[in-house]
């Protein structure tokens, strides 16, 4: 077996603020294989974005500090690289698309210049060749009249178009890894469908691995091959997408699945079934959580869960969960499903 493209190993990223230490990422381990799509799911503040930003070393330090762990990209620990080496990687080997395409594009540069910039920087192309490649990229991401659009400014484009431009920028240098942080959250459903479709199509053509960060289980089911579920700075479950949806083993995953209404449910049920709530709120990351972070909100929790932190364990081939009661969770899900 070849080594994965990217391995995040026991990463701990803490923020040292005046109000105390925020344990934003508290021992997260996951990997991405070449050409694979990994979805990282969780609610706001669970550390899914910060973990991904760490890969590009985009977390400002201070206040952020890597307390432990490694991020190995093709065998090299990214946390050991200096900023100049990091810059060589960014945009060329690893690139990122963000949630809000308007704020992550420079409003005073034309679309063509922005796409071209990375090419000039990383591949030493001259302006002219870069512009030609920019047109090509715009065509690739399905923007009509690319020769005209390449000379336009971000504000002249619609939200969906801007996200296409972002993708074109990210893919311009043929990166090996693409990190997509909530790429469709700011978009309307019909536009989201277009962008997801585009990402799927491009992936089969370009072959980059994707880390897809999202809170939308629908997007996960549609795009991912493997899924990592995060809660309060920790990884709570990891499985192939089929396994996760067929047999969730962590109560948080189970709770997430129960709390979203399903399209077409009115055709099945007479009256809408009550949504399963996850009681309470996300814990503050300022305090050290001795046991399982989810225990105070968990219906399965025992006294042990509050005391002892469950290690992540492989419960079935490729299916990991950090829960003492994983078997009961799986059993209840199976019962509810039948």
């Amino acid at each position, binding site marked *: 077996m070849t080594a994965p493209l990217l391995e995040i190993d026991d990463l701990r990223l803490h923020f040292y603020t005046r109000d105390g230490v925020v344990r934003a990422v508290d021992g997260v381990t996951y990997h991405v294989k070449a050409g694979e799509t990994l979805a990282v799911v969780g*609610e*706001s503040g669970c550390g899914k974005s910060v973990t991904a930003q760490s890969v590009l070393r985009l977390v400002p330090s201070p206040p952020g500090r890597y307390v432990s762990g490694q991020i190995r990209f093709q065998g090299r620990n990214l946390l050991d690289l200096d900023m100049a080496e990091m810059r060589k990687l960014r945009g060329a080997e690893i690139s990122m698309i963000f949630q809000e395409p308007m704020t992550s594009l420079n409003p005073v540069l034309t679309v063509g210049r922005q796409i071209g910039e990375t090419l000039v920087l990383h591949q030493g192309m001259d302006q002219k060749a870069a512009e030609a490649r920019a047109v090509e990229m715009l065509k690739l991401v399905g923007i009509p009249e690319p020769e005209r659009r390449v000379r336009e400014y971000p504000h002249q484009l*619609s939200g*969906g*178009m801007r996200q296409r431009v972002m993708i074109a920028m990210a893919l311009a240098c043929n990166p090996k890894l693409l990190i997509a942080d909530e790429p469709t959250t700011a978009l*309307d*459903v*019909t*536009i*989201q*469908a*277009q962008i*997801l*479709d585009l990402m799927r199509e491009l992936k089969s053509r370009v072959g980059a691995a994707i880390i897809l960060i999202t*809170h*939308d*289980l*629908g*997007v*996960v*089911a*549609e795009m991912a091959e493997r899924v990592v579920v995060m809660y309060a700075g920790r990884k709570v479950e990891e499985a192939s*997408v*089929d396994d996760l*949806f067929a047999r969730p083993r962590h109560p948080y995953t189970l*709770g*997430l*699945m*129960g*709390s*979203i*209404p*399903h*399209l*077409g*449910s*009115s*055709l099945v049920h007479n*009256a*809408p079934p*009550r*949504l*399963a*709530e*996850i*009681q309470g*709120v*996300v814990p503050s990351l300022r305090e050290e959580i001795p046991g399982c972070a989810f225990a105070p909100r968990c219906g399965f929790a025992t006294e042990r869960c509050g005391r002892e932190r469950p290690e992540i364990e492989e419960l079935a081939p490729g299916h990991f969960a950090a829960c003492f009661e994983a078997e009961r969770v799986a059993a209840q899900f199976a019962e509810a499903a039948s």
Partner: protein
Amino acid sequence: MNAQAPIEAGPLLEVKDLKKHYPVRKGVLQRVVGQVYAVDGISFTVGHGETLGLVGESGCGKSTAGKSIMKLIEPTSGEINVAGKRIDNLSRGEMQSVRRQVQFVFQDPYSSLNPRMSAGDIVAEPLRNFGVAVRSEVRDRVAEIFAKVGLRREQMDRFPHEFSGGQRQRIGIARALALHPHLIICDEPVSALDVSVQAQVINLLMDLQQEFRLSYLFIAHDLAVVEHISHRVAVMYLGKIVEIADKRDLFGRAQHPYTEALLSAVPVPNPRAKSQRMILKGDVPSPIRPPSGCRFHTRCPYAVERCKAEEPKIREIAPGHHVACHLRGPDA
């Protein structure tokens, strides 16, 4: 109609041909060079104890419609009746009596609460405005409402930034509930919340509806949420309602091509249900220069010549199922 929505004489809210156009000004002299047709002639009703879902993509005018009903935005034209009384021609002062019956829940639980007022004062504001409760009783009344929305009495003296997003939305709901209104217009009340918290707020809204026999106009872009909470659903596109029906008809037998596309665009949280998808081409056109004829014809996969020329009227093609499309219905 639905079994849960008992029928009373006449609807609680009746909106007829509501329009809101914004002038587009240009140049030094601020000449009006065009109109934004944000809401362009929509009609619907909301019955007693019923929830009407209003869905559409951003910029379709659904929020503008909701705000126009409460005259938070002055509508350009149209008729609005609440419990049989016409309210669109009332002045700001006269609207006060209507505001006791119709309340509003805002999308953003952060900016819709005054950061310098305590949670208790925020909920007490409508009570004080209408002198509903004597000064000494206000606190007790607020505490009562707090209990209804799942907040504790001792949280009354805290300030908005001390609450989580879901709790803030509960404060917003408590404020809307304070005057015991008949209708609450909910403008994307859960879209700013995390998934697990969304469920809490949706359940709360449904519980409150049961308890107080509230009617909701539920404005949202999340189709699954709308299906869950609504009795009937209206779909908007570029300022028009293109389809309105009982939710089972709409989600089971969608007639308008746009509704069809919307439904098929929603990602399904089931990796095995890889459905073939109807992906619309292009973007939503500008509401400043909406397309001629049917506004959807530029993106509609079925469009014919007639769609470009002639605007389809909304017609009832089955009991309670209204569609604005030339290609659907008995004579198509």
